[in-house]
């Protein structure tokens, strides 16, 4: 980073003076303006930008909500209703924040499946990918903490169930639970510290996002062919090509977001959370938010408490091992005819697990959840290593350019000079 080569040339005297003291303009120029991006990126590559936009929206709406919110067991529920009824545009801030969390997860799931499909986790992008898994874990923690804050029935019982999950950890579980509760059960000290942590974690996410983007700019972006940039003609400069595409996709995504805010603001929530928390009554049908449902189904598929907890956390952590579990030398699933079928089976299994997570834990649902859980883990532990060994991949195109124009054609166009694209290719 210190020896960051840049083509940025400061023009004004002030810019020269500043650049020689803190070369941040050069850093931005080489990262977001001149940075070479593969010319064949499709719209699945815009979700990184969409996710940064969602993080920004969540932080801004969250900071504003915190101006009106009271984090105590007796006042939290009322203060949320106060935001909804009394605060100017409070309803908008709250609906944007609550639905923003869901949209954040919509975008992150597309982003994760894109990475899995195109083999973006494979060398040399393992660290980049693992940073992404860490961001995902932090997002889950933040979303859970935030969901407890309105202190409705779902908030309270969600907090109870999740903190009881941690009590299953052998030896130290009870101590961890007591330190999280700050008492003998979920109560006032709990909501107080959950609010503090809910305010803290997004900044940690922002910090890891910086590392994630940094790692991305070291290795360069993957692309639908999975082959690296070989010459300047394989790439286009980040600005305007990627910039305008990212902004356009973000605007389209915001239309979906706005539709939820203005037309279906409570569709993704639960009516029970408009009932104040009552420690004597559990809602008849308790389910987490939709984005946790696949993991909830895995938890319930196991008849043993500790076993269920281990599998649930394992389902997230196993993602981090994908770079080493996948033995194929071909990145993109486009060129992997057998793995491609398993990949879509995996996507279907994840969706079915999500559906099962919302169903009552009885009869055929439990059996189905067990079969899907078995496949979920088998996909990582059996399919990824074995298919990579036995599969014959399709022929890869000679270059990114060739994949766009067809083999052997010459193009004039907006390619970069070879030198500008050289840095990422040395590692890719």
């Amino acid at each position, binding site marked *: 980073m210190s020896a960051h080569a840049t083509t940025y040339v400061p023009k004004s005297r002030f810019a020269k003076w500043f650049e020689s003291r803190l070369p941040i303009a050069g850093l931005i120029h080489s990262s977001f303006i001149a940075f070479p991006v593969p010319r064949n990126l499709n719209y699945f590559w815009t979700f990184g930008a969409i996710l940064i936009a969602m993080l920004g929206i969540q932080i801004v709406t969250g900071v504003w909500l915190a101006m009106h919110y009271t984090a105590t067991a007796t006042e939290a529920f009322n203060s949320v209703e106060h935001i909804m009824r009394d605060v100017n545009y409070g309803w908008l801030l709250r609906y944007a924040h609550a639905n923003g969390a869901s949209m954040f997860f919509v975008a992150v799931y597309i982003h994760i499946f894109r990475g899995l499909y195109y083999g973006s986790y494979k060398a040399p992008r393992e660290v980049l990918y693992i940073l992404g898994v860490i961001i995902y874990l932090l997002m889950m923690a933040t979303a859970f903490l935030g969901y407890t804050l309105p202190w409705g029935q779902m908030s309270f019982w969600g907090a109870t169930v999740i903190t*009881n999950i941690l009590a299953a950890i052998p030896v130290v579980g009870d101590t961890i639970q007591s330190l999280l509760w700050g008492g003998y059960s979920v109560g006032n000290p709990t909501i107080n510290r959950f609010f503090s942590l809910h305010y803290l974690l997004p900044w940690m996410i922002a910090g890891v996002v910086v590392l994630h983007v940094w790692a991305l700019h070291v290795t360069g972006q993957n692309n639908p062919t999975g082959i690296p940039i070989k010459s300047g003609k394989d790439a286009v400069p980040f600005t305007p090509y990627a910039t305008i595409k990212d902004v356009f996709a973000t605007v389209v995504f915001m239309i979906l977001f706005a539709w939820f805010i203005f037309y279906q603001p409570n569709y993704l929530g639960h009516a029970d959370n408009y009932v104040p928390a009552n*420690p004597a009554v559990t809602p008849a049908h308790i389910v987490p938010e939709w984005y946790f449902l696949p993991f909830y189904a895995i938890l319930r598929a196991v008849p043993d408490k500790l076993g269920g907890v281990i599998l649930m956390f394992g389902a997230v952590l196993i993602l981090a091992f994908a770079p080493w579990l996948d033995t194929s030398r071909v990145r993109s699933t486009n060129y992997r005819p057998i793995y491609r079928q398993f990949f879509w089976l995996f996507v279907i299994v994840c969706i079915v697990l999500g559906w099962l997570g919302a169903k*009552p834990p009885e009869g055929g649902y439990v059996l189905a959840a067990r079969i899907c859980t078995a496949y979920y883990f088998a996909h990582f532990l059996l399919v990824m290593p074995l298919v990579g060994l036995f599969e014959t991949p399709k022929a890869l195109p000679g270059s990114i350019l060739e994949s766009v124009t067809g083999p052997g054609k010459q193009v004039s166009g907006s390619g970069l000079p070879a030198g500008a694209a050289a840095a990422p290719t040395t590692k890719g």
Partner: protein
Amino acid sequence: MADTVATGVAAPHGADGTRRDFLFLATGAGLAVGVGAVAWPFVSSMAPDAATIAAGAPIEVDLAPIQDGQIINVFWRGKLIFVRNRTEKEIQDLRAVPMSDLIDPQTDAARTKEGHEKWLVVYGNCTHLGCVPAGHSGPYDGWACPCHGSLFDASGRVRRGPAPSNLPVPPYAFQSDTKIRIGEEGGGKAAA
């Protein structure tokens, strides 16, 4: 010393090296103790505070108004506790259950106070993930958990998972035939 730096010739080790080793170890040890000493108050401050502990003093429950077969909810330390006035038939049925049928084997007598077998006092949160099971429901006429389907009998014993253990019995003692004190065992011993 200045001479050594300027010429780039290292001073002979011997005594000098020992002093550096000592400084290195002393600094490291001091740092470890310091980090621990600073971390401790942060972690400890998250434990239940004095007010929360004080609010967890024992409570008395009057049993006289509880009808045959009725279950009431009381709270101690923010935790839900069921007090159930069991019918004679329920008690007879529970005694007939063989230990081999139980996930967490325990006799009904071991879960009640001698001479007061009709009264069951148990924590009201499922031992799986803490939901409140609904009373008088399920095939064992005990409790049925709405969250993950655990079933308990009228002694609060788990009969079907995923709950791993019976509903725990809180510390309590009979003050008289119609009054119990929850939070300490008989003889004035305070609960941990």
